[in-house]
């Protein structure tokens, strides 16, 4: 169906009312605060409720703290043995299911890569009754004897927290015993916090506490950065690294796509931190600044224009004409292919509409790609975002800390006695800010969306289905759990957590991939087959007579 034929009119207030109509009053009240109609942008965005508990019985998109910690943050690091302490399920479900790609090739055929393995203490009922500490200790020893990894990370699952196994002490003792293996633990039980977001925080705290800064061996490179919040789903990180390399930018460490232990350990030597996913990792950026003096800027490598803009930001920061020229040359070289692809596809995608409910920054990032396809984002939201991801960091001082957030440790970092060195002086930073480069800043999703757009936090299955029925988008983006219920409605669903089988979508080449993929999805013939011929025209007016 072409965009011109489509006559779906809606009023966001009516849609919102319709979404919450069926709920019991208490649920309706709560959900009403998590559904925001984007309006009155000039007066500041209206407030949304986010990062609050999901409602029991309401089918949520969210996962748990363990998923955020082990699955999202630590999962993509190839040479750390990730040992899950708990019954088998948690370990099994996080085993290769996030499409984090990695390349151990540069280290030769024996390059360490434990990502294809799944390690668990597989706790049994006797471990729950009598405690699992001995088993964990033994499992760490067995993993060490078999693989001799440089590091073992231990993850707690729900029952471990309940029975009180002291995973941190065991890890410390095993680290001392083994000598050449850094062992540390994450208290990331699934019931902590209200979503994956708590797990990101727990993971980042421990990475910062136990790994970052462990290796002072100098890293070579003229323009040294870290890329924070990029997980190399479908090879995104590979494409971003390709572009960096072409520009002459040295990416010391990606947190944590295609990463290694040593990359984390040397990350404190970077001169700039570029933050992709604000939600999952703004803590690390802040801590790196406080402890080592490295400033951070928000970047986005999803979308060709966004990539060019982010590269220019990085070049502007280093204030070096050689880099500025190189970046411009790379953009000039890469863009023609992107523009050619866009101009070919735009006539088929222009004017179409999209909805996105993913992650805690992704929905924002992908809006840029849909813009490039001439597609309008009519509703968006985050699975586990906080208010600052919607409304920008300016609301940070006003966010009320509730009991669930208080359970998540905040670590206090101070300037490192010997290694703290501000990369830029106050004056330099101020001058750069005046030139338009914003440090430590993120404006959030809302200002980037049109007025009247429905912004929905922690969307659930019922609302998703209603939204699609009422607003009839040309494409819906979310995760695997949502995929098939949306497609049953005859609307294509693109996974933006794991990208289905596609990717990369980051950088210049990624943008072209995405254009092609969205073209394929919104213009697929399959969506025209929902009704059989006899359903299109059910009235029989006569019989067919064979002559």
């Amino acid at each position, binding site marked *: 169906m072409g965009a011109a034929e489509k006559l779906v009119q809606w009023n966001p207030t009516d849609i919102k009312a319709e979404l919450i109509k069926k*709920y*019991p009053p208490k*649920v309706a009240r709560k959900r009403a605060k998590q559904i925001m109609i984007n309006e009155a942008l000039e007066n500041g965005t209206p407030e949304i409720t986010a990062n609050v*508990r*999901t*409602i*029991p*019985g309401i*089918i*949520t998109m969210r*996962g*748990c703290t363990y*998923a955020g910690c082990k699955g999202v943050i630590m999962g993509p690091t190839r040479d750390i043995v990730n*040992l899950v302490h708990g*019954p*088998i*399920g*948690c*370990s*099994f*479900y*996080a*085993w290769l*299911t996030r499409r984090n790609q990695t390349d151990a090739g540069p280290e030769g055929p024996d390059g360490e890569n434990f990502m*294809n*393995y*799944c*390690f*668990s*203490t*597989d706790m*049994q*009922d006797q471990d*729950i009754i009598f405690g699992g500490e001995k088993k964990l200790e*033994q*499992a760490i020893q*067995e993993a060490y004897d*078999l*693989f001799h990894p440089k590091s073992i990370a231990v993850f707690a699952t*729900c*029952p471990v927290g*309940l*029975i009180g196994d002291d995973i941190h002490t065991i890890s410390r003792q095993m680290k001392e015993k083994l000598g050449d293996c850094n062992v540390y633990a994450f208290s990331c039980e*699934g*019931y*902590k*916090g209200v979503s994956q977001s708590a797990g990101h925080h727990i993971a980042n705290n421990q990475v910062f506490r136990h790994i970052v800064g462990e290796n002072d061996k100098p890293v070579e490179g003229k323009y040294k950065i870290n890329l924070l919040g990029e997980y190399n789903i479908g090879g995104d990180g590979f494409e971003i690294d390709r572009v960096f390399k072409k520009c002459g930018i040295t990416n010391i460490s990606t947190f944590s796509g295609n990463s290694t232990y040593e990359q984390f350990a040397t990350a404190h030597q970077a001169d700039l931190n570029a933050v992709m996913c604000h939600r999952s990792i703004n803590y690390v950026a802040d801590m790196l600044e406080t402890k080592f003096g490295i400033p951070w800027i928000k970047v986005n490598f999803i979308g060709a224009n966004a990539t060019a803009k982010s590269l220019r930001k990085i070049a502007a920061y280093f204030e070096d004409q050689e880099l500025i020229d190189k970046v411009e040359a790379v953009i000039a070289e890469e863009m023609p292919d992107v523009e050619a692809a866009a101009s070919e596809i735009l006539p088929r995608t222009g004017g179409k509409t999209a909805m996105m409910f993913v992650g805690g920054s992704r929905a924002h990032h992908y809006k840029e790609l849909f813009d490039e396809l001439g597609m309008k984002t009519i509703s968006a939201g985050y699975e586990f975002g906080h208010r600052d991801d919607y409304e920008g960091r300016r609301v940070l001082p006003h966010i009320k800390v509730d*009991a*669930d957030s208080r*359970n998540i440790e905040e670590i206090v970092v101070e300037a490192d006695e010997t290694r703290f060195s501000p990369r830029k002086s106050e004056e330099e930073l101020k001058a750069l800010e005046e030139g338009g480069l914003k440090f430590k800043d993120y404006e959030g999703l809302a200002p980037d969306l049109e007025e009247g757009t429905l912004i929905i936090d922690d969307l659930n299955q*019922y609302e998703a289905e209603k939204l699609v029925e009422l607003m009839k988008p040309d494409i819906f983006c979310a995760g*695997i*759990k949502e*995929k*098939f219920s949306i497609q*049953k*409605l*005859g609307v294509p669903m693109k996974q933006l957590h794991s990208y289905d089988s596609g990717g990369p979508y980051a950088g210049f080449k990624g943008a072209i991939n995405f254009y092609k993929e969205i073209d394929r999805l919104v213009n697929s013939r399959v969506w025209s*087959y929902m*009704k059989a011929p006899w359903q299109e025209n059910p009235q029989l007016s006569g019989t067919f007579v064979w002559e």
Partner: protein
Amino acid sequence: MLLRHTPKEISERKALTINPAKTCQPIGAMYAALGIHGCLPHSHGSQGCCAYHRSTLTRHYKEPISAATSSFTEGASVFGGQANLTQAFNNIFTVYNPEIVAVHTTCLSETIGDDLPQIRKKAIKEGKIPEGKEVIGASTPSYVGSHVTGFSNMVKAMTDLAEPTGKKNGKINLIPGWVEPCDMEELKRLTKLMGVGTILFPDTSGVLNSPLTGEYKMFPAGGTTVAELKSTADSMGTLALGEWCSADAARQLDKKHKVPCTVLDMPFGLKATDRFIEALRTIAGVNVPDEIMTERGQLVDLISDMHQYFFHKKVALVGDPDQVIAMTEFLVSIDMCPVHIVTGTPGKKFEKRIREITADMPFEVNVKAKGDFFLLHQWMKNEPVDLLISNTYGKYIARDEDVPLIRWGFPILDRQGHQYFPTVGYKGGLRLLEKILSAIMDRKDRDDPETKFELVL
């Protein structure tokens, strides 16, 4: 090498599981519950469990998997999950209006000791469960058994609905175990051909292979109805397919309502299907129709045609106990040699059954219940095989060891069609044979030198 760190030398591991050949109970309970018509599975624990189970089932079946959760946070973990579950019932019946909610526990709610029957009673009293709606519950701690145990526990919980009326219904209960929706459909086709009236439970056909029509139904047309489940107490008898998946429910009906039961192997392959048909014949006192005789003969015919390629080929096999037992027997029956056999689900009976089935093999068979993929891989390094039969996780081993792989079991994440093409019964046997032959011959065509590359094989 994808699994480059796996050493050939086998060392004993007491505490560390590497690359598990099983997962946890609740996912099995969720799959079983989806086989009841109008049922919303509910996971009593923190929301992550439910999300993981839905994701994994979705990836395998390529269908929407709706399930709710009690969404525990720290407070519920300390004070108990009663308030969360009661609130969940209210929300579920108001918003989704299912016929029945099937609650299963998780490690979390089991460890804190939430009492499902008590919470259910209280919720009924408080009007949170409307009249005419059902709630069943299964205890499925993740630190006991495996996903197979969880499936079995939820099927057993279904028998709680059984209500004898004093009047026999003339049917037999058929418990299929954890098989694909298309397998359940095939079992129904076979019993219909035999003229045997059945209550098949659970029955995910029509639920997890529903058509694409532009409409989304949270509760599609398929599934065993609550009325049918109630009627199971009035059946002539119960046929339970698979000791691990189905026997407990069958024995429960026998114990509680005197419905006699027989436990058979899952009907994969010739002999197990023969025993299944024979059982139907004797229980219902019917003749085997010509159509089924033809199907059987076709399977035997294909075995004889393909025999030359199968004879004494070595196979490594990993999966769930009921399926693996039947598959081992099938492989032996076509003169293949299953040499390494692993299941992740614990149970001494498994090793015993496999030993019996492979007793005549001219070599030592490696078998382990509560083994893992890592051990299987080490065995394969020590004694290579011609074929690996496994779920999708086997593909890493298959590539490293350059062994053809047949995807069979749960989960299959990287191929499609398994939802639609049954592997049970005689027709399922044809499909299995075709898959095995294709895997072996594709490899031969790839590997043969030019001089040996032939048109007619």
